[in-house]
């Protein structure tokens, strides 16, 4: 089936087999390998992308279902060498260790901040409840978001350092 979709502001039109997931299409069809496959069944969130404004697990969406959609992936964050604000906040707060969960985490946070410019700690936690991190832990990630959204003193409520 021929599908058209916009990814990170660029329009693509491609032939795509009907059983291929959006995740595989992004990685293998478009070469956008920033989005990761973890569990492949909606538990880990490593494959999170923003589909028509909503964070979704791209391993559970067929590419053909996304025909006509507007998608954001981690590749759309940095502009050349300049990181996005979310990426800078993650870097500053050491919210990245191995980095495998990071593309999904960043996309979940991006969706949250688009809807809710000043989330509370519980809202941040809820936004990333579907994203597993197995090395950094979640505290620094929550701190990064709380810092980014302009909390008093530039400190997240969970600042522990």
């Amino acid at each position, binding site marked *: 089936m021929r599908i058209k979709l916009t990814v990170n502001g660029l329009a693509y039109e491609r032939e795509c087999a009907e059983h291929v997931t959006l995740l595989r299409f992004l990685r293998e069809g478009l070469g956008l390998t920033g989005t990761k496959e973890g569990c492949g069944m*909606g538990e880990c969130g490593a494959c999170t992308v923003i589909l028509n404004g*909503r964070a979704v697990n791209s391993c*559970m969406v067929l590419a053909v279902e996304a025909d006509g959609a507007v998608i954001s992936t981690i590749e759309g964050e940095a502009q050349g060498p300049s990181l996005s604000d979310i990426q800078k906040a993650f870097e500053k707060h050491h919210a990245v260790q191995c980095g495998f969960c990071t593309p999904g985490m960043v996309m979940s946070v991006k969706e949250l901040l688009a809807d809710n410019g000043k989330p509370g700690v519980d809202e941040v936690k809820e936004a990333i409840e*579907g994203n597993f991190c197995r090395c950094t832990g979640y505290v620094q990630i929550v701190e990064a978001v709380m810092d980014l959204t302009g909390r008093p003193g530039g400190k997240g409520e969970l600042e522990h350092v």
Partner: protein
Amino acid sequence: MVYEFRYLAPRTATELATVLDDIKADGRILAGGTDLIPNIRNGVFKPRIVVDVKKFQGADRMAFGSEGLSMGPAVTINDVLRSKDARERYPSLCACAHELASHQVRNRATVAGNVVNASPCSDMAPALLCLGARAVIRSATGERVVPFANFFAGVKKTVLVPGEFLATIIIPAESAGAAGRYLKLKRIAGHDLGIVGVLMTRKDGELRFGVSSAAPTPVLVDTVGAKDDPDEAARKVLASVSPISDVRGTKEYREHMIGVYVRRLLSEVE
């Protein structure tokens, strides 16, 4: 996914009914895909054709009218949670929706898919049961309306037959304003399947309990009276369920926690 299938996305409800009539048992209906796609990947289902029910005109309709709230098969769990009207009129529907899986899954999973999947641990079923919701089931030969109290037929089984699809869920206007709370026992605070879940609603002195993960199907208990003491209420709810021991918990633990939740809800839901 290595397994290959064809994908069809009918553009009208009539066309969808015709397609489902043609393919019958050879196909699988795709709503949010959060169960179907992992199941195909894991080899549980091997459909020749996957039919998307989200793309027909009106599939994503969510409307509040004189008969209540109607939802098409493409309405997602988060569509419900984002609706101010739904939060105000059907708080127990939203309480259940909020406990379902993770934020990303809620962005994709549909209310219709959650009940048609008919897992005993369905989180939306307790709300639809307690609120007296009805399923409008459509096929090439017509339409029938089934109350959710008669919708579930067994583990992962509903009264739907091949060729039929759940076209609309209607939550009656009379149920609007029912107070409710859903307690779901999980291993972690975030995304997890329930060990047991108990919803209690209270409207005009009438109590209802919807219980998940405690029997082959989600269970509605409407025999508890407003004057029953907590132990009597717990006894009546437990008489209606038949939990099993499995990887998530034992029968005894489930029974104990259902009793705890019923007693707690009686004091908490005003």
